[in-house]
């Protein structure tokens, strides 16, 4: 960690907070505090400078206009690139995932992304809306991914990144894979919010940020019930 407390930056809640994205910051902060880590959550609006010294950066979902504006401002700011160069963790969701790549489409126009992940997004033939599930890359050692997706884009991964998961329900990147990761950068189409549906993913980000190999387990009764219920719902929809 970069200082006494774990610093979490929520990037541009004024632009990129369409799908309960605050939840990811809340879940991360709570799970860190429950392990006794002091936590500081900074909400950085799009008219503010991005601090380059935080441990975890969260980029959320948004409509086309705010997504394009958010990418422009992040490119102009440069703080996120400096943070990544210093080894910070970045977690992007939906529009926030797309804009970490090299390019994406917003309002029918191709926009330049941050080029932090080797991927590019274009428009799909139809909007992907519904439950999303997948088996996560075994190297990450996590239980299955669950979430809700709602996006018009399709994402094509380059050789520098690995898919986060193999799709078992929903569309994700392209109907076969979902999300991407490289080093300590990870992106997903999953809402729910993603870290509420997947607390093990939140713990992965915390481990990346702190360098801890293991974290003490937490009481996750309600998350477990939620995950089971969603898994059954997906299975029932398929049957």
């Amino acid at each position, binding site marked *: 960690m970069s200082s006494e407390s774990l610093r979490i930056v929520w990037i541009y*809640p*004024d*632009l990129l*907070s*369409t*799908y*309960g*994205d*605050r*939840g990811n910051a*809340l*879940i991360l902060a*709570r799970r860190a505090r429950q392990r006794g880590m002091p936590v500081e959550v900074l909400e950085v*609006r*799009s*008219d503010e400078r991005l601090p380059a010294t935080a441990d975890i950066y969260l980029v959320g979902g948004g*409509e*086309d*206009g*705010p997504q394009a*504006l958010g990418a422009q401002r992040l490119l102009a700011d440069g703080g996120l690139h400096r943070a990544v160069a210093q080894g910070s963790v970045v977690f992007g969701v939906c529009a926030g995932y797309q804009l970490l790549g090299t390019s994406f489409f917003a309002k029918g126009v191709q926009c330049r992304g941050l080029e932090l992940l080797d991927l590019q997004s274009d428009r799909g033939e139809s909007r992907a*809306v*519904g439950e999303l599930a997948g088996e996560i890359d075994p190297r990450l050692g996590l239980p299955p991914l669950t979430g*809700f997706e*709602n996006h018009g884009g399709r994402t094509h991964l380059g050789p520098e990144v690995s898919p986060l998961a193999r799709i078992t329900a929903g569309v994700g990147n392209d109907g076969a894979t979902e999300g991407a990761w490289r080093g300590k950068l990870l992106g997903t189409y999953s*809402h*729910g*919010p993603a870290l*509420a549906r997947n607390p093990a993913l939140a713990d992965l980000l915390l481990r990346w940020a702190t360098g801890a190999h293991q974290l003490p387990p937490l009481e996750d009764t*309600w*998350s477990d*019930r*939620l995950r089971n*219920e969603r898994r059954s719902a997906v299975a029932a929809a398929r049957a």
Partner: protein
Amino acid sequence: MPLRAKVASSVSRTAAALSRAAGRGDGSVIGGWIGLKIDPDLLAHLSAGRAIALVSGTNGKTTTTRLTSAAVGVLGRVATNSFGANMPSGHTSALAKAGSTPYAVLEVDEHYLAQVLEATEPHVVALLNLSRDQLDRAKEVAMMAQLWRAALVRHTDVRVVANADDPLVVWAATPPGDPARGINPPHVTWFSAGQRWHDDSWVCPECGSTIQRSGEQWWCTGCPLRRPEPHWVVEDEGVLDPTGAWHKVSLQLPGKVNLGNAATALAVAAEFGVRPVDAVSRLGIVTSVAGRYAQVDKDGRNIRLLLAKNPASWLEAFDMADEAPTLLSINARDPDGLDTSWLYDVDFAPLRGRQVLITGDRAYDLAVRLDVNDVPFQHVRTFDDALRSVPPGRLEVIANYTAFQDIRGELDRVI
């Protein structure tokens, strides 16, 4: 009315009566749907000769429509779609059922405002607010504002009554005129009803700059868009009218948000020439609206039903609810929106210290949310379990759309 329209109107009324008699619904949609099949222009025919007000927005439109009907009722009979059937089939049903009336006040789903403006040629349109709602199928909020604005450009003769506190509404209500072609911008009367929810309007819809807020004021940091000076303002337990006269408003409906709805109703009625002093007492006769705010006594519990469909309306519901045991019920069926992520846009902290029960199809999503929010709760499977779990006295029920209808069903579809 042309013969085809007469036939369509009559068939429409019959179908609605049949639907009610068969117990298939309250008949507020089916009749209009059939009528429109016979005569696609039926809504326009039924609108002709009436002075009409349309009420639209994300939240508060059913209640505001009801209050406005009460206020305009000072002048004569008012046709209205009082069951929240707010698409053209519902408007057609309502007008056909009411027969000939000098006035109509119609609640309009925000997606249909352009179409209904076209069909009904209203005298006045009230624009309440725009915020995120059912994002998996609804239009993006900024796009909704754009559609309203485009619709008003085509109807510059309509009088607009709009919320000065919502930047998206202000922008939508003030399309530029085109003096060269003799098009003036619409006449707008502004009301201030307060707005607790700000998270959909940090970015200026006109220029993309940041919107700043200080107290009740807001302004764009990059262009001239700013809060207009309101003509109608909620103050204490009443409403200030444009002349500066204050009217005490005694509502049976709870919460500051309903005082705002009352101010809107008085402003709309004033566009028809109703003096607020004549209308204000009529607002107090509205007790519940399609089950919203209804109170039912059962097993020694006084159950009050509050509908909260989206983050903005949850914030208002917490403001209305008493410090009493509270049942929260969440579903995610089609009419609710399938994505429950919005639960994290709502801060449930106001419920700390109350006995909180949760239920509904998606109670586990709510459980995880409340856990993170440090709000203790108890999960119950059924409404009866909830009743048994609370002491005699008030039980506040806050539920989203289909969860609300489920509980209304348990209470004999109270209206």
